[in-house]
């Protein structure tokens, strides 16, 4: 899986720092830990079984329309953000 760039790692750290401040919880992780967590999620979501399962679920929902992979990826970005807003996420 593609390793995050330094800029991407920074984006994750700074986002988590801002959220900890805004939502009032302790920032009790180290740089390397939060970067590793982000990388682990990227790696997991990039595995063939996960991508295949998600793609199939989209195909089933839109049938007979089949979205292109770039369209599915764009959909995934906004859906993941919405998932984060839901209480049971």
């Amino acid at each position, binding site marked *: 899986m593609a390793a995050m760039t*330094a800029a991407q*790692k*920074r984006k994750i*750290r*700074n986002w*988590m*720092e801002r959220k*900890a*401040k805004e939502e*009032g919880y*302790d*920032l*009790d*992780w*180290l*740089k*390397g*830990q*939060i970067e590793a967590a982000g990388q682990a999620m990227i790696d997991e979501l990039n595995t063939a079984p996960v991508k295949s399962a998600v793609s199939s679920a989209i195909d089933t929902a839109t049938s007979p329309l089949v979205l292109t992979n770039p369209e599915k990826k764009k959909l995934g970005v906004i859906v993941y953000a919405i998932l984060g807003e839901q209480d049971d996420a």
Partner: protein
Amino acid sequence: MATHRMSILGAGSKPDASGDVFFEPFSVKATAAVFDPMVLIFNDSGNEDDFHGSFVVPENYVGSANFYMKWVSTATTGEFRVEFLYRAIADTEDGDPATAQETVTSDETVDGTALDINTTTMALTDGNFAAGDVVQFILRRDGADVADDMGAAAIILAAMFQYDDA
């Protein structure tokens, strides 16, 4: 003999061009912020970030030179790698030096409670200073060093030159 501390943050000090070192109101990152002074921020950038300044060594300077700093963070774990680079310049010496005279470094562990005060003291070489010297300095967060693992901004409340008189 008494110990003195003088602020080295002033009108002559300035951040580098990174955009990751700047002054902002404490209330941006503080929670209660009843007291809301301007504070100096070193972001968690992952890079070396510098803050530049200068001061004049007081006339009653004798020795025991130290860099002294009070700082906080919203992080509750990790280390902030602080570096202080300087050159003390006497009259008729080059006022535009190309190198630092001394660099001191410390890996400072943040307090386990967010926004609790941390104190950093780093000894400087006494003999480098003489009363009346102009001291040009860089205060640095070396976020590129593996030792700097604190995942939040360092918030500088005070940076001072500490010394003893006669």
